[in-house]
């Protein structure tokens, strides 16, 4: 008996599993870096988070009688990203609760893979920040071979990451060291305090480069997001609105992790090219506003979450239909 299937009868080598596990693969160097900086607890929290995400998805699909696809890779990504967004000396239940919220509330209740409005990992982070603010934003530990702020002289004086130093109205001395090339180098390598996966710009860039080359993420979103942050903080730096240079801004905090791995999430980013540029640029502007004037030292997660809400609107920006 012959098979009767609709055209086309060939497909490209790209498929969901490859995309999802490609992203997981791109996150592995970052994870190894965080183990190097923060010790084995980083791996422990990450594993817990992934297990919680997969288990939540499995339970949900089991209970609601859907196809079990908890191992398609998307839950693993969510798990890793949630863990990357928490400090390393968090209690063990923090990533577990975060992943549960991300997968159950943000992803599955909205219809599962492909239907969620918000990036699950970011929404999970937002939930954790709102529920346990002290654990999420005031609970930093320095990396094993470095200092919390990345500047040796200041460490004894203040318990702050580079970004939170900025919000404390620092003196000229501090600002000078924040703007120094050694500071930028430390930030680029990632040997400072911060969430598990956000510190090393270098490793994040390596992973993202792999995604861009494989076509598993769109470089336009990352470029427009990080690029607009760079340009706006650059202008502000010259105008004197922010005391630190734009390079410091894009390498500190979660800009790299957010711009390279979270804003580019396919499900929650626009489908048109025009939409993606707008998504990235507006996200960048929001991020700078939140960072410089809002209560939290960081603005990346909320800027992306807010832009996620605009995706259905941006999807209406259809390019003119051929010949119309």
């Amino acid at each position, binding site marked *: *008996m*012959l*098979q*009767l*299937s*609709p055209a086309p009868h060939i497909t490209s080598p790209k498929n969901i599993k490859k995309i999802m596990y490609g992203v997981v693969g791109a996150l592995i160097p970052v994870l190894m870096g965080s183990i190097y900086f923060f010790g084995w607890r980083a791996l422990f929290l990450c594993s817990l988070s992934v297990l919680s995400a997969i288990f939540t998805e499995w339970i949900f699909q089991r209970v609601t009688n859907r196809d079990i696809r908890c191992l398609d890779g998307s839950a693993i990504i969510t798990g890793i990203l949630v863990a990357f967004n928490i400090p390393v000396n968090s209690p063990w239940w923090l990533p577990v609760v975060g992943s549960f919220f991300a997968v159950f509330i943000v992803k599955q209740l909205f219809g599962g893979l492909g239907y969620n409005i918000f990036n699950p990992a970011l929404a999970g982070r937002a939930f954790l920040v709102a529920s346990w603010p002290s654990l999420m934003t005031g609970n930093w530990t320095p990396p094993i071979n470095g200092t919390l702020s990345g500047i040796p002289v200041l460490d004894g004086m203040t318990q702050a990451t580079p970004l939170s130093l900025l919000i404390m109205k620092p003196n000229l001395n501090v600002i000078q060291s924040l703007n120094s090339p050694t500071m930028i180098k430390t930030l680029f390598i990632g040997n400072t305090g911060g969430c598990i996966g956000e510190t090393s710009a270098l490793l994040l860039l390596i992973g993202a480069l792999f995604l861009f080359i494989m076509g598993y993420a769109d470089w336009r979103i990352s470029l427009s997001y990080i690029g607009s942050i760079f340009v706006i903080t650059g202008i502000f730096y010259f105008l004197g609105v922010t005391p630190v240079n734009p390079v410091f801004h894009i390498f500190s905090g979660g800009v790299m992790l957010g711009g390279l791995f979270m804003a580019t999430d396919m499900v929650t980013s626009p489908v048109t090219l025009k939409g993606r540029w707008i998504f990235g640029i507006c996200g960048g502007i929001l991020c700078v506003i939140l960072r410089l004037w809002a209560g939290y030292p960081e603005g990346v997660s909320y800027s992306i979450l807010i832009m996620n809400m605009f995706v259905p609107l941006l999807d209406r920006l259809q390019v003119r239909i051929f010949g119309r």
Partner: protein
Amino acid sequence: MASILIPIGILGGIALFFGIFLIFSAERFKVTIDERVVKIQEVLPGIDCGACGAPGCSAFAEGVAHGEYEVDGCKAGGEEVALQVAEIMGVVVEVGGEEVAVHRCLGDNEVAKQVANYKGISTCVALHLLGGDKGCQYGCLGLGDCVEACPFDAIDMGDKGLPYVIEERCTACGVCVRTCPRELFEIISKKHDIFLACCSYDDVKTVKQVCSRGCIGCTLCVKVTEDEIVTMDGDLAVVHWDKIDDNKLLEPALEKCPVNTYIKRSELKGAENV
């Protein structure tokens, strides 16, 4: 004291202003609604099946009030609704002749064999566009578009991949007739019991190849019945319901048909409880 009184005054003033504004606009822009439309809407089934020709129940209700549709136009509601609507409209309506949908194909998985292994979207319409996965190009595809479409859950898929009408629930609304890409459903009067369950215009050779109970165009049923109630359209027998008062007239065809394509509605699955 003033710090309490001033807000009270301001808020009270705002409330008063909006209250007056709302009263004014309610009077000024009042929409007059025909009371009968509301009443008719209440008695209609409210499932927007569209069988009456109107886009939905409320449109039908309005249409009836304006004389665009007949008072017994609601197919889904049947006799009961027709009587109620007639009462609201203050007219008399004659009811009678309930109808039911029949599925005119016997080609389940055993009778009509699959000839290809279909891998595509699981709707009859899509499969029909590809030519179908069964040998018969007129017969049921068995993917259940009708089951999905029926607003009354009156169609169910049988064990062998052939849908059947649950007559208890069928209102003869005609949604299945429009849904089936192969036009296998027909609305007939409930007084008819025997019907021809095949729509294949294929010649005898093809039918024999693809189906064991398809009409082979032998013309026997035309010969054994009287008054031209059955005629031939190419290789398919056609029953003329308008010429049949008494369903017994079809009994010779039921008995003589060599491939048992005539069947009794009352003996089908789905008619058991009626």
